[in-house]
């Protein structure tokens, strides 16, 4: 017995502390396996108060708030299985973020793309993007994306062209300003909205701007599908020309090449082949029987969705 603290007892207590810490960590691990921490996170995004309310509550730190929320949205999105009903909260979260920081161009752009391409909620995507137009007159991405939505998802070429023209007017060189082809694309949209070539150019432009793998995949699928349509239209035009010049239907597609109407028969993008019904003169694909009506109709205001 001494006046000093017995060193033994203290180290024993430290051991106890270590033990307790171990138990704490164990329970944490156990809890992690148990309840999806994810649910809680989603809940929080859903519970987010409206931006107008949150903004004053952040006492001037609303930009940081927007960043922080954006990070949450990104990580929740990153490893989620897409469930349709969950995109309501995504829109809500994006709405809050863009209210906190109305100039957060990337949030509009990426959010708009995710909503339209992954969530198939063009309505929400457009709502978000349109909200971003006024505070960001120098962003070409927002009108570009709006144009894309109107072109592909709503088949409204006129408005798509309007938005693209707006994007094209943003000064500066790419990537500060719009890509060079934007103005040309707008012009072509005004003239021939239902031309698959225009669509392909638009898609290629979109693909250029997109880094997210999921969305790139989506765009690439679309490009394939439109390419198929373009090929079919090209083949049909060749058949038409054949009939006009020879007054008889071509017996096979190869004849079109022989007649010099085509340089070659294009490859079917899905790995199938193009077939010609010599009785009717119809050209079809072995993989897709349905046609994309959008590009056949001469009415550029067609509003039906295109099959995939």
């Amino acid at each position: 017995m001494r006046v000093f603290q017995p060193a033994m007892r203290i180290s024993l207590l430290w051991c106890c502390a270590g033990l307790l810490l171990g138990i704490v960590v164990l329970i944490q691990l156990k809890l992690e396996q148990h309840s999806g921490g994810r649910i809680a996170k989603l809940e929080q995004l859903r519970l987010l108060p409206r931006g107008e309310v949150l903004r004053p509550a952040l006492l001037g730190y609303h930009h940081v708030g927007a960043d922080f929320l954006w990070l949450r949205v990104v990580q929740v999105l990153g490893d989620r299985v897409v469930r349709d009903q969950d995109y309501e909260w995504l829109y809500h979260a994006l709405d809050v973020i863009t209210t906190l920081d109305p100039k957060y161009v990337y949030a509009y752009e990426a959010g708009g793309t995710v909503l339209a391409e992954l969530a198939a909620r063009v309505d929400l995507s457009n709502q978000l993007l349109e909200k971003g137009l006024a505070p960001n007159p120098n962003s070409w991405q927002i009108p570009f994306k709006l144009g894309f939505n109107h072109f592909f998802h709503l088949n409204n070429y006129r408005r798509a062209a309007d938005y693209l023209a707006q994007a094209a007017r943003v000064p500066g060189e790419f990537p500060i300003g719009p890509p060079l082809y934007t103005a040309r694309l707008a012009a072509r949209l005004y003239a021939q909205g239902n031309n698959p070539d225009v669509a392909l150019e638009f898609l290629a432009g979109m693909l250029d701007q997109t880094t997210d793998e999921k969305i790139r995949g989506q765009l690439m699928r679309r490009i394939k599908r439109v390419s198929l349509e373009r090929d079919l239209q090209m083949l049909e035009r060749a058949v038409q020309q054949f009939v006009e010049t020879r007054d008889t239907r071509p017996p096979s597609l190869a004849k079109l090449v022989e007649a010099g109407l085509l340089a070659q028969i294009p490859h079917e993008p899905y790995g199938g082949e193009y077939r010609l019904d010599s009785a009717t003169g119809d050209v079809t694909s072995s993989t897709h029987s349905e046609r994309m009506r959008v590009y056949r109709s001469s009415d550029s205001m067609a509003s039906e969705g295109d099959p995939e």
Partner: protein
Amino acid sequence: MIARILSISLNSFRENLREKLLYNLLIFALLMIGSSILLSRITIGDYHRLILDIGLASINLFGVLIAIFVGIGLVSKEIDRKTIYTIVSKPIPRYAFLLGKYFGLVITLLANTAVMVLGLLVVLYVMDVPITGLFFQSIGLIFLELMVITAVALLFSTFTSSTLSAIFTLGIYVIGHMSGDLKELAKKLDEISQAIINVVYYVLPNLERFNLKGHVIHGLDFGASDMALTISYGLTYAGLLLLLAGIIFQRRDFQ
């Protein structure tokens, strides 16, 4: 020994009851809870949710404020005012003093939370909002969070000034609610940052675990085993903090 700890607790409780801060916060909380009635009049649609939201958040927030700002003074005030001299010289071990002070504030918080919950229950009853078992589960976990935060404040107040304790405890509170997100974010970082964040995540209290507010509002089930695990998590963590506080306090000189 338990009787002696209890008499320190009751003395501490009495002392806390004299804190003006306590009443200010309590009144503020009750006003917040009450104001949810007004807010629910101007909202469209789901006012149940609004009342529950505001009510639970108020109970939580004001409980935390009380736990922090009363908790940091628990020990340092006794040292500053030298009242601790008369206690440590009595035949009770120092840890008993610490435990007494801790439970004194826990009793204070219990009384406070009870008042706030009562206020909320009245509002819920008046507004015809259904009261579920989940609601009480959520209150229970809020209280558990308060116990952990009190222990954090107590730990800091055994070796730093009140001001520093307040800052540290607030820091732990904020990190405790963010560490889960930090861990998720870390998945996209390099290994060293990941390791650091993982240590922070597992060693610091994960206060998000005690947050059932979302569950209550959306009526999501919180299973009994989850509840048991969460409770044991909170109690073990508080125990760990008290043990550390005890070790530090035992070695401390009272100047």
